[in-house]
């Protein structure tokens, strides 16, 4: 039914429109004073983070020529010393609250939007970056901003127009032109959290919109080396040429609060179009990338090898200076290393989950059918996974819990949370999902705890024909064959002789039709990707083929002529 298909396609319209049109709850968003205060404090936090970054890079006085002659040879990093004197005059400017009249419109109306809150960065967006297209660029020609002066409690409104910024996803940022002005202010959505770095980078066109300042390398004793002359393209290629596995961690604030992120390298990052200067992009040795770009903490997984290559690049290709902060003990850094390494290991518990959680199921048809998969214990490389940018979800159970409680009420009770774990599921290339999945284990917060993809197979595979049997388990691509005398056989030849015309060979429900006493020939089969080793295919003189390669043994009717043909080939 075509119109039902259209109706289903409409299910995927923007959530914003769905919520806007809620039939019984028509919520008008207004700005209350306490919201404004919360906003002001979060805006101040953003600015403070920027100022702290300024202190460690270009906003401070430094003396390049001085060296610290009191440094002992044993402590010498080998880098020229740079003395940093703190400049706290900028703090005074930030602390002072402007009056309504002193503020510009983006400072007055610093929050826009209803359901998605956009916060001003008080940055002018050049007109050539504005998308003026009536269809795609003008987001709301009749917007109205409303705000309350915290000093007088008076409420103001102003008409404005919301525009898209070229190259930037409208869920992340927009530009606003207030009535009576001809300039455009940048507003960002600090609450929009991407699922992957790829999404983040593409939505903001980071490759073209950001620039790098200095990089800072934190030594084990807390001392910092500043590296200048970063080649942005080189750094981008090292870190972001392949972002396929850079997923976002689901609770970055919690990770930071528990000391689960320890900075090793940070890069000062600017995004001028949205007004971000000296924002941090930091990397840890254990494979995390932290950034507060767009005003909220985000942490992504990153390959530890990339972090290592970044470190190598900085130390071998860039000029470095050891930073000496006046008034601070040598070795004391702004971000102390967490001495609680167990907080990281608790977060990433690698307690051999692959041996403990071994069963997962997929239900369909309103839960009436289940496909059950069990681990083979084997792993596959990411290259053998389909669509590695987007994975499904999975819950993996212990065998004991699953067997005992699956068909009882207790399956959904509290015991379940103690006997299951989360995971990402992905299809294997050339193997049908009804036969096998690849699973990557996560904890129940979606944090990956084992980087391997484990193969799970469904034993209740019920093909109709021999071709379907061989094709669905990827035999054409993965199977290796040996004769009974252990002689390797050409896989493509075996495929041609046995399976290529297998559409005609239907499965027999009665497996006893294969009589081993009438066996004509036999070959050994391995499909290592599915954990199938030392399996066999046999043919009998009365025209039946027996296969125990995958799942329960199956028998197919292939006819006497084909059985003889196979035997002639194998016995040659």
């Amino acid at each position: 039914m075509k119109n039902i298909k259209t109706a289903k396609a409409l299910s995927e319209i923007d959530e914003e429109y769905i919520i806007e049109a809620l039939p019984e709850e028509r919520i008008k968003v207004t700005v209350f004073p306490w919201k404004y205060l919360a906003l002001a404090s979060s805006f101040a936090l953003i600015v403070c983070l920027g100022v702290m970054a300024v202190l460690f890079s270009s906003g401070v006085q430094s003396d390049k020529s001085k060296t610290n002659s009191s440094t002992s040879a044993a402590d010498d990093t080998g880098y020229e010393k740079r003395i940093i004197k703190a400049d706290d005059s900028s703090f005074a400017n930030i602390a002072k609250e402007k009056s309504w009249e002193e503020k510009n419109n983006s400072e007055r109306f610093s929050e826009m939007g209803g359901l998605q809150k956009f916060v001003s960065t008080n940055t002018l967006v050049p007109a050539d970056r504005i998308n003026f297209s009536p269809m795609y660029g003008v987001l709301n020609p009749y917007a109205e901003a409303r705000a309350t002066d915290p000093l007088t409690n008076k409420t103001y409104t102003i008409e404005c127009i919301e525009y898209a910024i070229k190259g930037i996803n409208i869920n992340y940022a927009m530009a606003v032109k207030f009535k009576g002005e001809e300039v455009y202010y940048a507003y960002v959505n600090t609450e929009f959290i991407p699922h992957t770095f790829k999404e983040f980078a593409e939505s903001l066109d980071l490759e073209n919109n950001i620039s790098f300042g200095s990089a800072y390398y934190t030594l084990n004793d807390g001392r910092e080396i500043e590296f200048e002359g970063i080649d942005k393209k080189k750094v981008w290629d090292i870190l972001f040429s392949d972002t396929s596995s850079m997923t976002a961690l689901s609770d970055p604030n919690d990770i930071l609060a528990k000391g689960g992120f320890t900075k090793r390298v940070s890069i000062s990052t600017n995004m001028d179009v949205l007004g971000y200067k000296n924002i941090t992009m930091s990397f840890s040795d254990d494979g995390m990338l932290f950034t507060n770009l767009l005003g909220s903490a985000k942490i992504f997984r990153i390959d530890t090898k990339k972090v290592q290559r970044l470190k190598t690049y900085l130390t071998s290709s860039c000029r470095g200076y050891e930073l000496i902060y006046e008034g601070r003990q040598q070795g004391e850094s702004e971000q102390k290393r967490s001495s609680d390494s167990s907080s990281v290991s608790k977060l990433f518990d690698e307690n051999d989950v692959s041996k403990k959680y071994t069963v997962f199921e997929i239900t369909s048809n309103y839960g009436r059918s289940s496909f059950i998969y069990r681990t083979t214990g084997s792993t596959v490389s990411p290259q053998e996974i389909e669509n590695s940018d987007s994975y499904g979800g999975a819950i993996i159970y212990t065998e004991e819990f699953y067997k005992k409680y699956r068909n009882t009420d207790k399956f959904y009770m509290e015991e379940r949370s103690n006997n299951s774990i989360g995971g990402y599921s992905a299809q294997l290339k050339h193997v049908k999902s009804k036969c096998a999945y690849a699973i990557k284990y996560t904890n129940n917060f979606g944090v990956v705890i084992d980087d391997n993809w484990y193969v799970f197979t469904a034993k209740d595979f019920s093909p109709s024909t021999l071709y379907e049997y061989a094709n669905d388990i990827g035999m054409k691509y993965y199977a290796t064959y040996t004769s009974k005398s252990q002689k390797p056989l050409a896989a493509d030849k075996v495929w041609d002789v046995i399976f290529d015309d297998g559409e005609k060979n239907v499965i027999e429900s009665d497996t006893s039709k294969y009589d081993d006493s009438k066996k004509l020939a036999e070959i050994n089969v391995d499909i290592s990707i599915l954990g199938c080793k030392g399996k066999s295919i046999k043919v009998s003189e009365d025209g039946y083929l027996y296969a125990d390669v995958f799942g329960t043994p199956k028998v197919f009717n292939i006819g006497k002529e084909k059985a003889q043909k196979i035997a002639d080939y194998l016995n040659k």
Partner: protein
Amino acid sequence: MDDEKIVELFLVRSEQAISETKDSYGAYCTKICSNILKSKEDTEECVNDAYMKLWETIPPQRPRSLKAYLSKIIRNLALDRYEKNHAKKRGSGKTEAVFDEIEEFFSSGSDELSDSIAIRDAVNRFLGSIDKQERVLFVQRYWYFCTVKEIAKMHGLGESKVKMTLKRTRDDLRIYLQKEGIGV
């Protein structure tokens, strides 16, 4: 309990997640479902299936808006059930009227449907370009499957005004989709 806390309950696999979802959104889910299915039994089954789907997909999903996420799930489940129940039936009915209207988005005589992602993106762009009231009426009618009477009452409008507005929006959408090369 707010959405964020309920999602956290799903994440820690607490059974309380389902009961909290029921408390917060049970009536809402029932409303969406019954607008489409008109059958108490089917509605109850669909709503329970939606909770199951939430349990199975969070984690690793972590929806920003649980309500919107749940709405999409339950709407799709209800449409699946509707399709299954009415595969061979034709006839009048309030839900059928909505589908007849939806059919207008595409040129008459068109047998092929464009890719659903293309439809979604085009409709999103269209909705972003129209007046808020038109958009709300459209979504209430073709997403929530509210009756014209219900919509009129919610907005304090006459039924004929609602019908006219919906007709105009459908016509505009059809022209828009034609320009986009969808449903032509």
